Each structure stands twice: as C-alpha cells, then as structure tokens.
C-alpha cells in the first residue's frame, strides 16, 4: 500500500481525466498549485504544536478514494428526509459525498441576484461571482487543506449581492457514506455576503451506513460591510467516520458573523474556525457544543485575529464528554498593535461524565495593544453532586436528574440559536447521542 499522500497525488490523474474539458476553468489552476503544495507538505503529527493533542495517523493509515473518482450512491427523497431538520421553512440543498444532487434539493424561489447552489455549476456558469473570493480567503495551513483544494470540485456556493436579505435559512444536508471503496468527501463551500445583506445557513453533516469514510471540508466566508451571516453547523457523522473542517471567515466594517458548531458524531473530529477582523466595529460570535462518547476524539481549534480597532469578539464553547472520549479545545485570540479598544471574551467549560473521559484545553491570548478588555476562562469539572442530590431528593429518578443537569449545562449554547424548532431537535439529539434519559420541553409535553 502506498502512503496516503502519494495515493492522493496518484489519484489526481484519474480525477483530471474525469474532468472532461473542465480542466480549462480557473479552478484547475488552483488545483495545480495545491498539487505542488501537497507534494511539499507532510500531514501534521503530534510534534506539530497545532496538532499536539490530536493524532491523525488512523486517518492516514487507510487510503480513501476521493468521491469525485467514485460513483455516487443513490438516495430517495424519503431516505434523506429523516436527516433533515424540520418544522420551519428553508431552502434545501443536498450534497451526497460532497457532490450536489439536483434531484434531492429543493432550492425554491430566491430574491433576484442571489445565487444559492452548487459551486461546480457556479464556477461553470458565473465564474466572475467567485473568482475574487475562491481560495483567497483561506490559506493552506496544512496538508489537509491542500488535499481539499487539490480535489476542489463541488460544495455550497451562496452568493448574496449587496442589500439582499434572505428571509428563509438555507439548510444544506451533506450526506456522506462509503459503499464499495472507502470514500473521501471533500465539500468546498463558499459563502459571500455583500454589503448590507443577510443570510443564515444550517450546515447539516450526516453519515449513512456502517462503513468508514473521511470528510475533509474547507468553508470560506466573506462578510462585507454591515452584512450579517449566521452559520450553524450541526455535525452528526457516523461513528467510524473522520471529519475535518476548516472555516475561514473574513469580515469587513460593521459586519456580524455568528458561528455555531455543534458536534455529535465522528471517530476523530477536528474543526478549525478562524476569523480575521480586518476592519473596524466588527462583531464575531462563536458558540460551540461538543458531545462525545465511546472512543470519540473531538478537537476544536478557534482563532480570532483582531487586526483593527473597536471590534468585539465573544466565544463560548462547552463540552460534555462521556465514556472513553477525549476533547481538545484551543482558543487563540491575537490582538494586534493597531487593534485598540478591542473587547475579546472567551469561555470554555467542560464536563467529564465518566472517569475515563479526558480534556485538553488551551485558551491562548496574545495581546499587543494596551487599551483592550480581554478575558478568558476555562473550567473542567463533573456533574455537581449536591445539585444532583437536591433534584433526587424531590423524587426525580437519579438518571433523570443527571439529564436535567446536562440539559442545563448545554442550554447556554442552545439558547443562542435563533430558530426555535431547531433548538428542540438539537436538544433531542443530545440525549440520543449520550444514550441518556431525555428531558422534553415542559410546554411540549403538556
């Protein structure tokens, strides 16, 4: 067996043959650069500070065939229905193994000038919409990024022109699965919000089947002046899958970017969420909730780069770790010398439910400006026995009491989600994932 880097480079030839004349597009030039980059890079190891606590060698032990070189599995509308979040209106896009499915998607009516659809199609039909942004926001930080760019083919393209507001959220279902070969799905997403525009995206990553697969994503987000973007990622890949995503946001003056990151699935999960605040009066909010059981390994790295004055960032990450799972949190904030009057807050709280769960957390502040207010806090603990006892003493079974406390702990993050029905469905997933007694919202049960 060839090592995975060589395997991916070798497979690129097959991919180029399949491209069928599309190799003349601007995208292909970018792929060729990525080929050079990947050839020069090695996949990160524990000796790399950014990957100190996450060992990716299990991912590299197998060769995953890039989805573009495999035949796409078929799903019916009924089959995908159970993966969707419901009870509210949305534009639906479905990607199977990272490739857009016209039949399963229901985009519906969009305001004039708004493009929501497949990146591949947009690159063919309206390349001028994306050339200014594509691969310009995200720089290649590691071999996984290079790998994504090498096979960059399809993914979400959401381009909202100046002054347009998308009333309904976009729900993007990324359904990943392996049939014959082990599959590498690599959605490549580009979100561009023009001046004074607004949009909300629910990125719904799901796994299907028992076989292993590997999802490696790059999401680029450009938020222009006074635009508001909500990006809510809910990841529930199958237990044996590997999931790596890099989100890179670039924000302009007075813009707001809210990122929600809720992790349930995956054997090894790594999220890099980075924002560059390159103008004044920007607001950035990161909310994260990760639940892990079994032998899951969940790693969240966030990086907020305060380059200009008068910006505000707020970050709240909470983790609930059970069984033999392991969590990693690294929250980096850099406040540059020019970035006076910066307010940057960060909190990371973790609950260990079992004796064998573990967490490695590193909140990291690097501050070069003096007129700032920055703070970070990190706590690690277990469910409070006295609270548990108090609830039990009122006749609540112990297991339910525990669930109540877990629900209360997760609530700070769940509450920040703006779509009500989504909150309840996420709440349901929490207890399903942890195999614990569910707390049903009292109003609903009445």
């Amino acid at each position, binding site marked *: 067996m060839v090592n995975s880097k060589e395997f991916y480079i070798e497979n690129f030839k097959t991919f180029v043959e399949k491209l069928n004349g599309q190799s003349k597009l601007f995208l292909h030039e970018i792929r060729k650069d990525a080929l050079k980059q990947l050839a020069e890079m090695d996949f990160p190891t524990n000796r790399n500070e950014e990957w100190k606590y996450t060992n990716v060698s299990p991912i590299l032990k197998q060769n995953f065939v890039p989805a573009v070189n495999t035949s796409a599995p078929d799903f019916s509308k009924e089959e995908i229905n159970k993966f969707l979040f419901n009870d509210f209106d949305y534009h639906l896009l479905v990607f199977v193994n990272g490739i857009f499915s016209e039949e399963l998607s229901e985009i519906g009516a969009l305001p004039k000038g708004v493009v929501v659809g497949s990146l591949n199609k947009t690159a063919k039909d309206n390349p001028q919409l994306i050339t200014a942004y594509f691969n310009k926001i995200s720089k290649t930080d590691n071999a996984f990024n290079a790998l994504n760019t090498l096979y960059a083919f399809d993914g979400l393209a959401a381009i909202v022109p100046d002054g347009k507001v998308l009333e309904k959220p976009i729900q993007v279902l990324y359904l990943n699965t392996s049939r014959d070969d082990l599959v590498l799905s690599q959605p490549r997403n580009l979100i561009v919000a023009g001046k004074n525009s607004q949009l909300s995206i629910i990125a719904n990553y799901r796994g299907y089947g028992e076989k292993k697969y590997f999802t490696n994503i790059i999401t680029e987000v450009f938020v222009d002046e006074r635009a508001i973007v909500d990006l809510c990622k809910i990841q529930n890949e199958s237990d044996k899958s590997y999931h790596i995503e890099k989100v890179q946001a670039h924000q302009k003056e007075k813009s707001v970017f809210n990122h929600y990151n809720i992790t349930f699935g995956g054997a090894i999960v790594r999220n890099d969420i980075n924002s560059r605040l390159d103008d004044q009066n920007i607001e950035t909010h990161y909310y994260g909730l990760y639940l892990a059981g079994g032998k899951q390994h969940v790693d969240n790295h966030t990086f907020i780069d305060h380059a200009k004055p008068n910006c505000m960032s707020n970050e709240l990450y909470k983790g609930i770790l059970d069984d033999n799972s392991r969590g990693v949190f690294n929250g980096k904030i850099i406040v540059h010398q020019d970035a006076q009057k910066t307010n940057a807050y960060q909190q990371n709280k973790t609950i260990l439910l079992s004796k064998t769960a*573990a967490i490695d957390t*590193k909140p990291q502040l690097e501050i070069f400006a003096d007129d*700032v207010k920055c703070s970070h806090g990190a706590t*690690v603990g277990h469910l409070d026995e006295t609270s548990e006892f108090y609830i039990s003493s009122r006749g609540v079974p112990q297991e339910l009491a525990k669930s109540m406390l877990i629900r209360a702990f997760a609530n700070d993050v769940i509450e920040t989600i703006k779509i009500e029905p989504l909150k309840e469905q996420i709440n349901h997933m929490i207890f399903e994932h942890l195999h614990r007694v569910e707390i049903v919202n009292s109003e609903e049960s009445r």
Partner: protein
Amino acid sequence: MNEIKEKETKPTEEISDDMKVLDDLTSSEYKWGFVTEIESETAAKGLNEDVIRMISEKKNEPDWMTEWRLKAFRYWQKMEEPKWANVHYSKIDFQDISYYSAPKQKPKLSSLDEVDPELLKTFEKLGIPLEEQKLLSGVAVDAVFDSVSVATTFKETLKEKGIIFSSISEAVQEHPELIKKYLGSVVPYTDNFYASLNAAVFSDGSFVYIPKGVRCPMELSTYFRINSQETGQFERTLIVAEEGAYVSYLEGCTAPIRDNNQLHAAVVELIVLDNAEIKYSTVQNWYPGNKEGLGGIYNFVTKRGACRGKNSKISWTQVETGSAITWKYPSCILQGDNSVGEFYSVAVTNNFQQADTGTKMIHIGKNTKSTIVSKGISAGRSNNSYRGLVKIGKNADGARNYTQCDSMLMGDKCGAHTFPYIEVENNSAKVEHEATTSKIGEDQIFYLNQRGISAEDAVNMIVNGFCKEVFKELPMEFAVEAQKLLAVSLEGSVG
C-alpha cells in the same frame, strides 16, 4: 470663543501629561547596576569533556560526580536548543563561553563611604539594612561586628537543629550520600537542553537539608551563605525537607546585580516528604539590558519541586523584574496524596525585556491541590508571556486547581500573552482558569490625582494593588523590598 477653546484643549493636555508621566515611568533606565572588577581564575572558552573534567577536578569531586557531569554533557551534545518559547534572541554560541570562573578575593572597600552614592541611594530606597548593604557592595565587615553578625548566629542555630546549609560543592564532600540520593532526582540531566548543560558544568549553588520534624527557625537566604555570595552562572540548588520539616528559602535579592555572564542556566530541585513544606521565594533583578535592548542577562532556569510525601506542600513565589530574557517555569509534581502546590508570580517587563514564565502543576496523588496566581506587567516595548500547564492524571481523584493570570499593559507597544495548557484525565477533578488583560486604569489614576496624589505615585499604588495577592505570600521583609523594587523598576529618573 477663546475661552471655550481653552476649555476644550485642557483635557487633551492632561491626557498628554498623563501619557508623558507613563512614558517617563516606563522608559526608565537601569541605573543601579554596578560592576566590580575582580580577579578571577577563568578557564579558556569552549566546552568539551576536558573542561568538564577540569571543573570537576578543581572542585575536588569524587569520581561518581565527574561521571554524572560527563553523562549529562554527552546527552546535551545530542540535544537541540528549544525554540518553542515566545522569546527572540540571537543564537547563543556555546563554544564562546567560559565555563569556569572562580572568583578570587574581592577588593575590599574599607567603608560604605567609598561605595558609589547612587548605589547607596538605591539600597536606601529598597530599605536594605546597613550590614547587608556592606555585604552586597563588597565592604569589609568589621571584625568585631562580624563575630556577632546575623550570619554567624544563624549558622550556629542551624547546626544545633541539625540543619545542613552549605554550598553544593561542600555538600558533595561532606554529605555524598544525600547528594547521591537526591541530586538529579527531580530534574534529571536528561530533562531539557539547559538543565543538561547545567548538570554538566554547574559551578556551585546551595544545598539545604532539613531533618525529620525540624522547623527551620529562620528564613534561609543566599545572603548568608558567607563563603559563596557570588551568583554563579550555572547555579544548582537542592533542598530536601524530611518528614514534618519546614523551611522558607529566599533566593536572590532586591539589590540589582550586574554580571558579565550573559547566559544563566540555573537548576533548582526541591524534595518534600510526608507533612513537610518548602516555601521558596525569589526576587530576580538582574541586568535587563539598556533602553535599546542591548546587553542584559539571558535567564534560562529549570525549577521543579516534588511533593513526594503525603500532605506535603511546595510554595513558589517569584518577583521577576530583571533579565533581558526570562525563561522559567517553577513547577510542582504533586505525587503524595493531599499534597499542595502553589505558585505566585509577579513578572515585570520594561523596554525590550522578554519574559516567558509560568508554572506546571502535575497532579498525580489523590486530593492534590494547586493554586496559581500570576500577575504580568508589561511596559515599553517588552513582551510578557504566561505559559502554564495543569495536568490532572488518571488517578488524581479529587484534584483541585485554581488558576488566575492577569496582565496589565502600560503603553501601546508592549505585549501580554497567555498560553495555559489544561489536561484533565480524571472526572472528579475541578479545574478553573481565569485570565484577564487590561490597560492600567485611567479612571483610577484620575481618581488618585484628584486626591492630590502624583501620577507616578498613583501608578505605583495601582501596580502594587494589582500585585497584592502575590506580595502577601512573600516573607515580610522581602515583601516590603519587593514593593519598592517594583516602584524602582517602573520609575523614571524622578525620585
């Protein structure tokens, strides 16, 4: 119209005044260093096995000690200089350093009148007693006075209690069994680049042994280790507290120390057995380099304590104001059940100083507790980093950690950074970490100004208040000195 204009301009003037004072305060130069020309016996530059054998021979060391040094040296040769710290400096040429320099007799001054008056002023400001002033500035101590001097009385009292307090070279000769047992048992010669280098070439240092059940009646201080007041380039300190013993050890002094050696790589090892406690306080005020960032000491120190016994306790307190580069992490290995580790630190950087300091708390035993309070103050163009590790092992049931690290910035060209690593593998542990960074409060300065307190006094008061939690951990006399030292460090040529 004119009147209105005047009113408008006034506040800006005040602000610029404030800025000026801040600027003055933070741009002060290290005035108080002094160099004494002393004749010394110095080995040729460079490092090889022969040099190490020579050092060992000069010290008349037994074979096992020479062998240990050589092992360390061979290991060191294979190591690479660490690059991970958040400090920048030009590469050190380890072959361009002389590794042995035995100071000969100092030129004795006959009275304090001959000492540089500037220096005396500093001493006065720091409140150093007259006798210590003499000791520090190399004035011959009056023979009559000497016989009753604090130091001699100290030595006698210690001897009575069975406490060993000597230089490490002496201890190698007189108590080889203790040295063999404990030296390198907390910081092995394989530990890190500078610790290995230190193990190979260490010049001298202190050895303290507190026997079972003895409470050391006074603060032990390097001041009083009469025969070796010189701060060595590669110091090695070893302190052992037997069951139920207690000792408080003071290292360094508030008085400024200038040294021709640019690289300092010291190692400190503490060993605490059942129910024993060591309190280790440091005040470091080595030459930080001039205003342009030239010169200054590189201070790369490995300090570690092992709480081996049940209910044992180690408490590190440090006030770091000197050195061009500080790179040190006094750590605690909490092995014994119910053992306690504490770390209190104030690090002040000014001009071009760089400090990367913090602690490691390794929880291994059950119900172990650790507290970390770190206060960083950066001014000028300096960079101040807190880097810490809290590790809760699998079997450390009921472990508890509280960490607080606050940074204060004075001026817009300095940096304050925090790199806390928290690794928890036991769910019964409780770990809390808090960090804040902020500017020195303008409203606080204003409030004090308005009550007739000058801007510089106000800054001193605020900084002292900011560091209060740490200062209260210092032994009383030291605390008073440290407060004044902080004022001196941030003060300009004004008063």
